[in-house]
């Protein structure tokens, strides 16, 4: 037996048993149930394992704003492009930012024109680049949710303790619970429950969703991303609806504690302060972002090295914003699979492997 239980949580028999239970529980309901996930890894997993095909017609899964690169607005890409054009500058980034189109260029295009752009696996690698090349300034593109933000916080603390003065972060970190509450109040979406993210919840904890269940009356289940996890998460959501409850349940107890990861939360509160954040598709949401705290302002690219950029322009015809709100499925975008493909992406949702459009294109509907 694999100690990580991967095979067990992918076991076909268990998956089918859970699917049957969902069918039984949802039987006879007049209105279909709509559950949203807000985690790029869930999006990929649901497509990859064909989870929708296992569910009855009365249970619908939709994807929300869970792909970190996708929710990053065009204006951010424009700033990254502006930094990439500056002399003596290395841009360090996670790989999937490279091809996200800005208003008139992308990092990929800038690299073709000679900009020094390095793909890193960890922000610590970006800090190491700054150590190796002290004559240059290294700007790390800090995008991502509560899972990634503490890794940036830890890296900034390391930079501070080493006295590194050529390392900067262009920070656009986002926190997921507030957008979830906005979407759960949208009558057009009529969300019956949330599959709460796996990795984000290891940090913020299952209790972070309590206000959604209690004040917004939307059932929440923190769910892992193996196929049996997702089906059990759906089964728990259907059960809550059928029993008329809205509470927070934790399917992913093997990795997620009610209070989350205390050390990671401490890193977050030391290095970041809550801020308003601009989301693609959702606009500016008060209190839904993390800005670098004044104490660490010397690492904040926007404070130390301000740039001005053109008025951001969304790509014409791109429905990424509607896809991120769960209002349309990728296939309902007129550009999907024709003008917009993973090879020639128009919008961010087709670029990132965690984007709904990229997953729908790769694995089919």
């Amino acid at each position: 037996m694999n100690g990580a239980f991967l095979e067990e949580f992918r076991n076909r028999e268990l998956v089918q048993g859970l699917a049957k239970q969902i069918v039984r529980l949802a039987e006879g309901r007049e209105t279909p149930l709509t559950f949203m996930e807000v985690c790029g890894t869930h999006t990929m997993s649901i497509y990859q394992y064909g989870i929708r095909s296992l569910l009855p017609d009365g249970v619908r899964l939709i994807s929300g704003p869970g792909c970190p690169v996708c929710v990053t607005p065009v204006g951010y890409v424009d700033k990254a492009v502006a930094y990439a054009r500056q002399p003596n500058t290395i841009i360090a980034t996670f790989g999937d930012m490279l091809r996200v189109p800005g208003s008139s260029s992308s990092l990929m295009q800038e690299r073709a024109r000679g900009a020094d752009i390095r793909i890193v696996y960890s922000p610590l690698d970006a800090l190491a680049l700054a150590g190796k090349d002290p004559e240059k300034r290294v700007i790390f593109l800090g995008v991502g949710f509560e899972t990634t933000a503490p890794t940036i916080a830890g890296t900034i603390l390391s930079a501070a303790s080493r006295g590194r003065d050529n390392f900067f972060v262009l920070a656009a970190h986002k926190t997921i619970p507030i957008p979830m509450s906005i979407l759960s109040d949208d009558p057009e979406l009529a969300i019956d429950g949330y599959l709460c993210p796996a990795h984000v919840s290891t940090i913020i904890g299952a209790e972070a969703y309590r206000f959604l269940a209690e004040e917004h009356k939307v059932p929440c289940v923190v769910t892992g991303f193996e196929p049996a996890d997702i089906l059990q998460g759906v089964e728990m959501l259907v059960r809550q609806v059928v029993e008329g409850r809205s509470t927070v349940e934790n399917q992913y107890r093997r990795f997620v504690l009610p209070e989350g990861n205390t050390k990671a939360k401490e890193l977050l509160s030391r290095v970041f302060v809550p801020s308003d954040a601009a989301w693609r598709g959702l606009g500016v949401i008060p209190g839904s972002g993390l800005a670098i705290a004044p104490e660490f302002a010397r690492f904040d690219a926007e404070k130390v090295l301000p740039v001005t950029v053109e008025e951001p322009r969304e790509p014409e015809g791109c429905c990424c914003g509607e896809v991120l709100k769960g209002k349309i499925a990728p296939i309902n975008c007129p550009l999907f699979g024709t003008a917009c493909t993973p090879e020639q992406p128009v919008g961010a949702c087709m670029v990132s492997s965690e984007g709904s459009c990229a997953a729908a294109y790769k694995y089919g509907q």
Partner: protein
Amino acid sequence: MQITSRDGESIIAEIDGVSREASLMMLGEEVQVGDYVLIHAGFAISRLDEEEALETLALMRECLELSQSPT
């Protein structure tokens, strides 16, 4: 991923023959070689609780049995 070695705040973890270095800055608990951890962007973010994993699997098996019963 399973931890194969530890050196202070830094670990090497492995899955399917791929190994990665990760920081333990976010795990306060005593993490040991042999433990399974989730790794994100070069940091170990959570350790697998095997007892909870077994309980979750037991619930899934119960569900399977229920689904095979006639009513």
